[in-house]
């Protein structure tokens, strides 16, 4: 646990007046406050330190104690410790601006001041939790259930078929427990779908490539193609050009929360030219060239 120079955090000198402290805090809060940086974790962390510095320096008693003990904070009086709560909202359904850690203050702060903050016996809504669930493309082809462990609690969730990469679902009441009988926060689960080496997804459609040999491309034929759900047979038309795209209806990704509906699969044909021609083949291709 390291000593934290709160004056340095706020960018003020040790003789700063209350007004200077307030001004410095507001200036930094306007830049770093989580309300203004909802997705920036780094700003959240920085703001916690700014808030902690303000909490100490704007309170004459705490400031005095901090100034007195300074770097010898480990020998400071720790009497009357209780858990600190900085939140000021007092209604179920209200939302605190912090999220993530249980404690908003550093170990240094807790050691020096314990819980002598502005704790009140009002109800606070618990913090929201965020979790990321990694899935493969094949996982989203059907609705399935998974058990997640969030903060030591097992939660069984249903993952509807067709969820998008980056999609977030909210599980009400699965966040941190409320304080003083307040309601629990919510759990936000973000789905991260790993890219598939053979299939690319766009909305509900899938895109892939199939390699056909020169003769099938020229004369037509049938090939077997492995989709995400099994093998299918594809008819290749005569004189199929490289890059020809075909659509296989209903072989894409299921449409989110629309049972029985799926996108399409688009397959682009790559034509593989023969390599290492035999002498006989060379003669025949030469003949063909003369004919064309």
């Amino acid at each position, binding site marked *: 646990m390291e000593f934290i120079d709160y004056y340095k955090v706020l960018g003020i000198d040790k003789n700063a007046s209350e007004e200077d402290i307030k001004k410095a805090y*507001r200036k930094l*809060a*306007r830049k770093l*406050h989580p*309300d*203004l940086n*909802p*997705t920036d974790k780094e700003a959240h962390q920085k703001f916690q330190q700014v808030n902690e510095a303000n909490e100490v320096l704007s309170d004459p008693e705490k400031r005095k104690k901090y100034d007195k003990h300074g770097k010898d904070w480990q020998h400071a009086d720790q009497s009357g410790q209780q858990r600190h709560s900085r939140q*000021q*909202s*007092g*209604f*179920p*359904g*209200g*939302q605190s*601006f912090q999220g993530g850690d249980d404690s908003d203050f550093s170990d240094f702060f807790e050691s020096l001041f314990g819980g002598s903050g502005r704790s009140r016996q*009002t109800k606070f809504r618990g913090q929201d939790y965020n979790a990321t669930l990694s899935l493969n493309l094949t996982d989203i082809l059907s609705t399935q259930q998974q058990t997640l462990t969030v903060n030591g609690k097992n939660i069984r969730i249903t993952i509807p078929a067709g969820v*998008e*990469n*980056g999609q977030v679902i909210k599980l009400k009441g699965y966040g941190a427990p409320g304080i003083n009988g307040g309601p629990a926060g919510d759990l936000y689960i973000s789905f991260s779908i790993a*890219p598939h080496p053979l299939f*690319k*997804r*766009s*909305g509900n459609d899938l*895109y892939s490539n199939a390699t056909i040999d020169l003769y099938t491309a020229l004369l037509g034929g049938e090939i077997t193609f492995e989709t995400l759900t099994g093998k299918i047979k594809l008819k290749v038309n005569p004189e199929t050009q490289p890059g020809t795209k075909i659509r296989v209806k209903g072989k894409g990704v299921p449409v989110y929360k629309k049972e029985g509906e799926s996108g399409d699969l688009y397959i682009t044909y790559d034509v593989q030219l023969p390599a290492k021609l035999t002498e006989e083949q060379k003669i025949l291709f030469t003949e063909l060239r003369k004919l064309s």
Partner: protein
Amino acid sequence: MAAEEMIPADEFCIHHHIEINFIHSVRESGLVEMTSRDEKIFVPVSQLAQLERLVRLYYEMDINLEGIETITYLLQRMNDMQQEILRLSNKLSIYEP
């Protein structure tokens, strides 16, 4: 239709140590939806988080209501753009090897 729980605005003000004038101004700006009954203002529970956010911006960061309106608009735009970036990056992944 389920009835929504309401918090009396004056009770909200007592808890947050703020003046009722602030609530009136917020209501006029349309930043938070509120209802009134018998000359009393009520805040729907679903709007509490937003109202508490405005209290923090106004009182902790000393930002006036015009500034808060601008911030709210810009944050909404930022959120919309992030959604758009996500949508486009999902689409772009088709073309990446």
